[in-house]
C-alpha cells in the first residue's frame, strides 16, 4: 500500500487543513442557516440582475442585450485568464510544477479512456471518482438517516436539547480525520473506517440546522396546532416538517460539502480506490500533471454537488 508511506509531517498538514476548513463550514452552518453564499451563485445572480434591470429600462435595443452579455461574461473570463497567467508564470519559475498546457494535454489523454482497468492500483479516473462518490453517498446517507430525526427531536423537546448539548458541543469541533484511527480500530478495515469518518463529520450540520429550524417554528402555527388539537404526527407532517425543510436542505448541502472535503483527505491516508487515493498515488509515481488534474476534478465535483443541492433546495421551498 503506497499511501501508507506518508510521513508524519504530511499527516499533520492534512489534518490541520481538513480541520480548519470543516470548522469554518460548521460555523457557517449556524450563522448562515438560510443563506446561499456560494460565490458562483452570487456571480450568476448579479449578472442576471443586471440583465433584468437594463432590460426593463431600455427594452428596445438588441445592442444593450449584447453589451450586458459581455458585462456578465467578461469578468469571469478575465479572472480565469489571470489565474492561468499566474499559473504559467509560476510553472516557469519552478519548472517541476506543470504548466496549464502540459496539464491540459495530460487531461485530454487521461479522460480519453476514463474507465480502463488494468489492476486494482491502475484503473481509470472514472472508477476512482465513482468509488469516492459511493463512499460519500454511504456515509452521508447514514448521517442523514440518523441526523435529521435527531435534529427533529432536539428541536422539538427541550429535554432532548439539554441532554444532547454537552456531547454535541464536545464532538462537533473534532477534526474529521481524528476519527479515522478510531474507525480503523473498531471496524478493522479501511473502507468502513472512511465511511465512519464521513458519517461522524457530516452529521452535525444536519442535526443543528434541523434543530434550529424546528425550534423556530412560529408560535402562531403551534397555536393553530393547539387549538385544532392536532396529534403529534400531524404536527410533524403538516407543520414542523414543511417549515423545517428549507433549513434541513441547508444542512444537507453543508453536510455533502464536508463529506466531499473529508473523503479526499481520508482516502489519501487510507488507500484503496478513490480520487484522494489516486491523487496521492500519482504523486508517488511522479505524475505531477495528474495531481493538478485531481485537484480540478475534486473542485468541479464539489461545485456540481453544491449546485445540484441548491437547485433541489429551491424546488422544496414553499414560497
Amino acid at each position, binding site marked *: 500500500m503506497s499511501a501508507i508511506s506518508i510521513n508524519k509531517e504530511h499527516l499533520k498538514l492534512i489534518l490541520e487543513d481538513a480541520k480548519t476548513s470543516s470548522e469554518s463550514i460548521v460555523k457557517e452552518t449556524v450563522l448562515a442557516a438560510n443563506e446561499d453564499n456560494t460565490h458562483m451563485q452570487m456571480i450568476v445572480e448579479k449578472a442576471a440582475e443586471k440583465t433584468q434591470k437594463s432590460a426593463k429600462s431600455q427594452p428596445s435595443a438588441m445592442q444593450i442585450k449584447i453589451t450586458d452579455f459581455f458585462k456578465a461574461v467578461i469578468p469571469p473570463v478575465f479572472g480565469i485568464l489571470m489565474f492561468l497567467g499566474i499559473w504559467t508564470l509560476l510553472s516557469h519559475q519552478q519548472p517541476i510544477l506543470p504548466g496549464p498546457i502540459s496539464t491540459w494535454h495530460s487531461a485530454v489523454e487521461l479522460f480519453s479512456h476514463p474507465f480502463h482497468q488494468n489492476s486494482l492500483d491502475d484503473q481509470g479516473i472514472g472508477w476512482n471518482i465513482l468509488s469516492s462518490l459511493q463512499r460519500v453517498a454511504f456515509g452521508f446517507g447514514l448521517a442523514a438517516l440518523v441526523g435529521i430525526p435527531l435534529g427533529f427531536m432536539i428541536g422539538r423537546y427541550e429535554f432532548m436539547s439539554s441532554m444532547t448539548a454537552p456531547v454535541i458541543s464536545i464532538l462537533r469541533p473534532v477534526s474529521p480525520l481524528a476519527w479515522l484511527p478510531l474507525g480503523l480500530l473498531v471496524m478493522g478495515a479501511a473502507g468502513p473506517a472512511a465511511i465512519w469518518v464521513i458519517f461522524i463529520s457530516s452529521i452535525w450540520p444536519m442535526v443543528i440546522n434541523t434543530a434550529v429550524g424546528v425550534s423556530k417554528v412560529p408560535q402562531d402555527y403551534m397555536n393553530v396546532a*393547539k387549538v385544532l388539537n392536532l396529534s403529534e404526527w400531524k404536527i410533524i407532517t403538516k407543520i414542523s416538517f414543511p417549515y423545517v425543510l428549507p433549513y434541513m436542505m441547508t444542512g444537507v448541502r453543508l453536510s455533502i460539502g464536508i463529506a466531499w472535503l473529508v473523503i479526499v483527505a481520508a482516502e489519501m491516508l487510507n488507500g484503496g480506490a478513490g480520487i484522494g487515493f489516486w491523487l496521492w498515488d500519482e504523486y508517488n509515481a511522479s505524475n505531477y500533471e495528474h495531481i493538478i488534474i485531481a485537484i480540478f476534478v475534486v473542485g468541479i465535483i464539489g461545485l456540481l454537488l453544491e449546485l445540484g443541492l441548491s437547485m433541489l433546495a429551491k424546488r422544496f421551498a*414553499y414560497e
Partner: protein
Amino acid sequence: MNPILNEATTPALSNNTAKVTERYVHIEDVGMQFVTKKGTFEALKNINLSITQGEFVSIIGHSGCGKSTVLNLIAGLLQPTTGNLFCAGREIAAPGPERAVVFQNHSLLPWLSCYENVYLAVERVFGSETKVQQEARAYAALELVGLSHAVEKRPNEISGGMKQRVGIARALAMEPKVLLLDEPFGALDALTRAGLQDELMRIMQKSGATAVMVTHDVDEAVLLSDKIVMMTNGPSAGIGEILEVDLPYPRKRLELAENVQYNHLRSEVLKFLYERHAKKVA
C-alpha cells in the same frame, strides 16, 4: 344545502325554544401575571364575566390593555395565574376545537392550499365521518365565506381579506361551540372590513354559536355585538363597564347610521375610551 348550516342551525333553534344557558362561558376572579426578565407583570386583575350561549360579545380597549390575553385565556392557550374559567360548565384546561380561534394574523399554513388549511381542521374534528363528508364540509365552509373560486390557491397567492376569510372558514368548519376572534378585520381596509362584518353577522345569525371578538373599532363593536366589554388600561387591567346592545336583528349598517339608539351606544363607548379611560400618548 351545505352541512355546516344544517347542523349548526339545529342546536341554536332548539336552544331558543328550550332554556338558554346563561353563564355558558364564565370567567371568575381571573388574574394574569406574566413572568418577565424585569420581574412579574400583572396584565389582568379581577376579571369577572359571564357570557350567555349564543351571545356575541366584543371586547374593546386601548392597545396593550390585555384583550388578547383574555381571549387566549378563554381559548386555553394561556392558564390564569388566579381564578378560574369555565365553558359549558367545565373548567377550561387546554385548547380544543370546540373553542375555535380566528387569529389576528390569520395564521394559515403557507405550504397548504386554502382547501387543505380548512380540511386540516375538519379532519381533526369530524374524523369519524367518511372522507366524502369531510371534503364536503371543507368545501361548504369555503363557500360560506365566498371563496369557492380560490380553494386550490396557496395563502400567499390571495389577498389579505381572502386570507382572513379562509381563517374564518377554518374556524367555522369546526362547528365550534364558541368562536373566538382576535381583531379579525384589523389589518383590512374599510371597504373589505365592512363586507366581512356583514358576512360574519349573517353567519353568526344562522349558526347561533357563541362568539367573543376583540376589536379596536367602535362601529364594529356596536354593529356586531349583543354586549360590549370595555376594558380599563393596564397594567392590572380590568373590566370597566359592560354595555348591552339591544338593537334588533337583522342589523343594516346604512339604516343604523341614523338610528338614535345606535348613535347613543356608539358615543357611550367613545366616551369610555376617550374621556374616562383615555390613554396618555407617551
